[in-house]
């Protein structure tokens, strides 16, 4: 009984260490989005390559799709871009690009140089739609299901691991339902 009481401070200490260790392995820059599980914020924006046409969430109803927030000035977008191009070539899931706070000409030039994986890119020049989607850093990628519910948010560049372990299995699941 006496030795148990002596061990109590050690136990409390270990619990605190456990919490602190768990805190270390979490990225404070990844803010969980309240959007996951909620309807995707509707938008209808001018297309990057054809300013006479608009595109938006309504056009994607009934399909599982990704929204990828990108910009020509965004450095980490270059990192994830080859993955998006591969994804487009595999024709697994359509990707809509949200060209965030970019200049149209620069955006188009960037896609011409690095390849265009998007079904369509729309122009969010003032970042208003970005705010609706809770975008706070580019790139970000959302998975939206057939009924227009956001199912997943990737903050920062896509990685092979994120795609293979989380996004693609989720997309396949959603496409079946």
């Amino acid at each position, binding site marked *: 009984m006496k030795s148990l009481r002596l061990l109590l401070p050690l136990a409390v200490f270990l619990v605190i260490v456990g919490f602190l260790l768990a805190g270390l392995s979490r990225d404070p820059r990844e803010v969980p989005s309240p959007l996951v599980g909620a309807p995707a914020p509707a938008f209808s924006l001018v297309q990057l390559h054809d300013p006479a046409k608009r595109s938006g969430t309504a056009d994607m109803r009934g399909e599982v799709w990704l929204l990828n927030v990108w910009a020509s000035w965004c450095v980490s977008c270059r990192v994830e871009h080859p993955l998006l191009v591969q994804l487009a070539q595999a024709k697994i899931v359509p990707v809509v690009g949200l060209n965030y706070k970019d200049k149209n000409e620069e955006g188009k030039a960037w896609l011409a140089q690095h390849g265009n994986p998007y079904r369509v890119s729309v122009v969010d020049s003032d*970042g208003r739609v970005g*705010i609706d989607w*809770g975008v*706070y*850093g580019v790139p970000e990628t959302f998975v939206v299901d057939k009924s227009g519910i956001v199912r997943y948010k990737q903050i920062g560049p896509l990685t092979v691991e994120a795609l293979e372990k989380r996004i693609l299995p989720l997309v396949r699941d959603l496409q079946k339902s």
Partner: protein
Amino acid sequence: MSLRRALLLVVAALIATSAWPQGDAAFDARLQALEKELRCLVCQNQTLADSSAGLAEDLRREVRTLARSGKTDAEIKDFLVARYGDFVLYKPPVKATTWVLWFGPFALLAGGAIVWWVILRGRRGAGRGAAVAVDGLPRPDAMARARALLDDTPTR
């Protein structure tokens, strides 16, 4: 020449003052106060008011537009929480998931007080067998024993 310069100055002063309409001071103060309670998500340890990040500028503009359209502070906060989560609030709301955060320190304080009390009580209990009583005075029987020892007579 100097007259023209004076006139120019007057015109410039007029333009400068008209760009800041009077009566907006209260509105600006309200926005300032509100922006101080909101977090910039890019530079996470800065408020929206302090940050010069692009997103912070956009969010300030958004907050301003919402306030102009007659939204209350609570409605503006709800707008941002719906998009960015509770994290945008510098002061987290009190709800089931934040109880530990809000009341944890008080629980720890109470726990510490209980431990302190238990230890004190244990000491007081141990004091009963000692030569010095709780009030600090030697106990009579202990005094008698000490005297007997000093007199060097067998105590039996």
